[in-house]
């Protein structure tokens, strides 16, 4: 597996080709994704933006193997997700993908340290203690390792979730509105943390957000509208993203 990781690290960490996702059937059918092809380069922080209902969450779920495409293909590295059964898909998520969700990211019965190690423990692996150690320092929670999530603030909880997402050295970390429940300061810390981790350790992050300020932390933004890829923007700033968003709100 380590050789596979090495070869894909120079190319795309995840991608979808001609992705179509239809929710429901018949009259109530909705095309959430309508032929999207997009690649998420390894070692980069990519943000997916778009208005509500643009299909950005669906794209992330399908790319991460949480959901299946109606047609088209999704890859993590070189692995085509469609070829995997439920069990292999779970193992792939465990070993090669990390997740940060908007809320309810931690298991309340486990301590901070146990939450961080959760994917490794589920795999029955010891993990690399230096890596975990470094992660704990990066997220700045060394003094909270034996606390329960309920004893942490929302921002701290989300930082634990980030550390957990990176604990198993995944090919790619998917973050779904990670700052949606946080105030701007705590949100800024979490975003900074994601960006720093990508730059310092060469990991890959794909983040879904509707917040231009959040998107500005990314290396690149891809814009989605009505289930289609409509634009890409390198080195975004909050103002440019906001302008771009306004632009396609007018015609729709």
């Amino acid at each position, binding site marked *: 597996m380590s050789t596979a990781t090495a070869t894909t690290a120079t190319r795309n960490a995840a991608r979808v080709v001609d992705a179509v996702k239809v929710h429901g059937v018949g009259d109530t059918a909705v095309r959430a994704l309508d032929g999207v092809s997009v690649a998420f380069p390894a070692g980069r922080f990519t943000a997916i933006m778009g208005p509500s209902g643009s299909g950005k969450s669906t794209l992330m779920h399908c790319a991460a193997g949480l959901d299946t495409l109606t047609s088209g293909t999704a890859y993590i590295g070189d692995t085509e997700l469609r070829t995997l059964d439920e069990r292999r898909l779970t193992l792939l998520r465990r070993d090669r993908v990390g997740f940060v*969700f908007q809320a309810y990211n931690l298991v309340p*019965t*486990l301590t901070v340290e146990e939450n961080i190690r959760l994917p490794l423990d589920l795999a029955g692996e010891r993990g690399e203690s230096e890596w975990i150690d470094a992660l704990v320092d990066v997220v700045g929670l060394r003094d909270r390792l034996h606390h329960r999530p309920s004893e942490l603030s929302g921002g701290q909880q989300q930082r634990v979730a980030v550390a957990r997402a990176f604990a198993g050295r995944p090919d790619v970390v998917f973050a779904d509105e990670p700052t949606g429940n946080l105030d701007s300061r705590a949100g800024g810390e979490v975003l900074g943390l994601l960006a720093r981790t990508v730059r310092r350790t060469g990991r890959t992050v794909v983040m879904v957000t509707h917040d231009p300020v959040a998107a500005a932390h990314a290396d690149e933004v891809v814009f989605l509208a009505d289930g289609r890829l409509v634009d890409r923007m390198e080195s975004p700033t909050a103002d440019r993203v906001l302008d771009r968003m306004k632009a396609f709100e007018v015609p729709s």
Partner: protein
Amino acid sequence: MNASLRLSLSSLRAHRRRFAGTFLAVFLGVAFLAGTLVMGDTLRAGFDSMFGNATAGTDAVVRGADTITTPGESQGVRQPVPTDLAGTVEAVPGVAAVAPDIQGAGQLVGGDGRPIGGQGPPTLAGNWIPDPKLNPYRLAEGRAPARSGEVVVNRGTADKGGLKIGDTTTLRTPDPVRVTIVGLATFGGEDGMAQVTFTGMTRADAEQYLTAGPGRATSIVVRADPGVSQAELVDRLTPVLPEGVEAITGQESAQENTDMIASRFLTIFTTFLLVFSGVALLVATFSIHNTFAIVVAQRARENALLRALGASRRQVTEATLVEAAAVAVTASAAGLAGGIGIAAGLQALFPAIGFPFPEGDLVIGALSLTVPLVVGVLVCLGSALLPAVRAGRTAPLAALRETAVDSSGASRPRAVTGAGLLALAVAATLTGVLVTPSVWLAGGGAVLALIAFVVLGPVAAGTAVRVLGSPLDRLRGVTGGLARRNALRSPKRTAATAGALMIGVAVVSLFTVFGASLKATMDQTVSRSFAGDVAVSTPAFGAGGSGLSPRLAPALGRLPEVDTAVGLGRGVAEVDGKGRALTVTDPVALRRTFDLGTVRGDLGALGTDGIAITRQEADRRHLTTGDTTRLAFTDGDEKTFTVRAVYGRSELAGDYVITRAAWAPHRTQDADTLVAVSFADGVSAAEGKAAVEKVAAIYGNPEVQTRDEYAQSSAGGIDMMLTLVYALLALAVLIALLGIANTLTLAIHERTRELGLLRAVGQTRSQLRAMVRWESVLVAAFGTVGGLALGAFLGWVLVRASDGSSDSAFAFALPPARLAVVALVGIAAGVLAGLRPARRAAHLDVLRAIATQ
């Protein structure tokens, strides 16, 4: 429709699944209760009509007026009446027909050489009364006995023993009599009077084998001329009867017989079943309470919103109670219907397994209709009361709180109260058992202990789950750790869930321990008191069997291999006004085969007017050797006996011993209950046993057992009872299982998002299933361990209390193998209960679980 009602009904509709467990718990408990009551009603009515039919032709019964009842017996021994009284009775105007009725014990040997019946119901023999209206049995096939050795048997007995008309077999009266079956009979339209076996012989045979001598009958049955009522007949008969003889109407006699069966069999039977349906309902209470507590906790937001919108506390409480009432009423009604169904099923099933269930419609008394309904509704509403009140107390602000880990269960006041209660319970029991023996104190202590366990449950849950679950971390890694912590999340909930199983397991282990102790006691009794080499007996239980021929012991005594063979017979007399069982034997031989402890006086000098008694009885009645005591026998004779010996141990020999010579004038049907044999010097066990068996075969082929075999077979009935108890308790355990499954299902519902997260970050389905299953096992293990501890303690209390209240010493025994099986079953139950919730949890849609609010 009022607001609370509308709220509860819509909530019920929305969450039907949540109440499936509650519904089932109430349903099963009520069905068991209703089934028991309806079956009792039906059996009682059936026996009523059966006796009514069978004895419809008997208008009056003439019999001895007094009975002698010994302790522990429900039916007394009645003095016989002289048969020549029949002539006097027949001369009374208005009497159409008269017949002496001679009854005794007689056990038939079946076609396979094994005795028929004897395990509970009586095995009767009597004279076949030729007048078909006076005979309760009707000839169904063949003819009445005409010559000596010919008999009629009831059809049920013949079928059971594989006998048919023309077959020749042995009747143990207990002297073996060769008999030929010439007819088959029915009783009140059935193949028999329940499982009672009946053999009808000629009157001469009956007088010879069933009574001490000719001229005596159990009673005289009388039929009146047309136009003479039963009461009139009795009025006319009474003046001609000698003193000590009475006449009662046929109806009264039938009623007495029904009552006798009702009290001896039905009441015990139904009480027994009612106790177990009580246990089942108690267990149900726990799981119902738990379900409502969880549902209320889960609905805290909804209730808080209602409160914020202006609903009063009462309205919120009412809404929950109405919900409970709706479940209670539907489940109880369904349970009642189910119970009637069970009774109907049993009515159809019993005849198929050879138990003649009286025919006719199901009889459902008013009580049997109302009691299960009321109990079901009360149990359900009572269990929901506290959660409902708690629902009403929801603060409007609670709408915004996230409930993650609730450790409120293990509060300090609870720990203090629980510990105090437990200390009090142990103190009360120990005092009641060891210091001043009192059943009430011990029983009160036992109940307190149960309450203390329930109160302490949440406090103990934390430690217990941590200890029980500690191997899990190592064995199952993170899956085990998560399971353990999930079980610890809400100690109160875990304790309540486990509590249901705890009670079930406690009752199971209580009976297991008590049964083992009884066995150990018998073992101890036999090994301490029985000094012989083999015991000859007829294994019987309850009122069955006919004992051993009194000629067996002398026959065995003549064998060269045998040193001593002593028969123990049983007599009945009133000793200073109280009915007592007497042991009729050869006192000198008795001492050689039984360890009687220290003997004061001379056992060899009893003669015909001497008696030997145990020290305990002597102390109680302040008697010593040389004192006199008056014995009144069933034939009306009274005689003064002199105490010639006092002995120490009564376990097998009984409290009073008299000689055969002293008993002979008063004897009825003679039988020994046990013949103890010790071999001559130099005779090997196998040799001696073979010789004894050869002789025994001639006398009705009773069992010849070594000391160990005898001790084991004495305890045989206990295993049978235990099996029945286990079967009945299975229902309570099943309800506890439903409770665990239901709690888990609700917990999974609560943790949907967390489970989604675990799945998203890579927990496989099988890991998730294992996690839920292990949680279930931990909860079950907690309940099982608590139940074993409580059951063993209560068993010990029961044994000690029995020890205090009975004459013979009672041994306490813990059966490790059986208790280990109970523990394994409890834990296996946990695995079983976790299966369905685990499967459901594993099939949660990851995306939807994450999105759930």
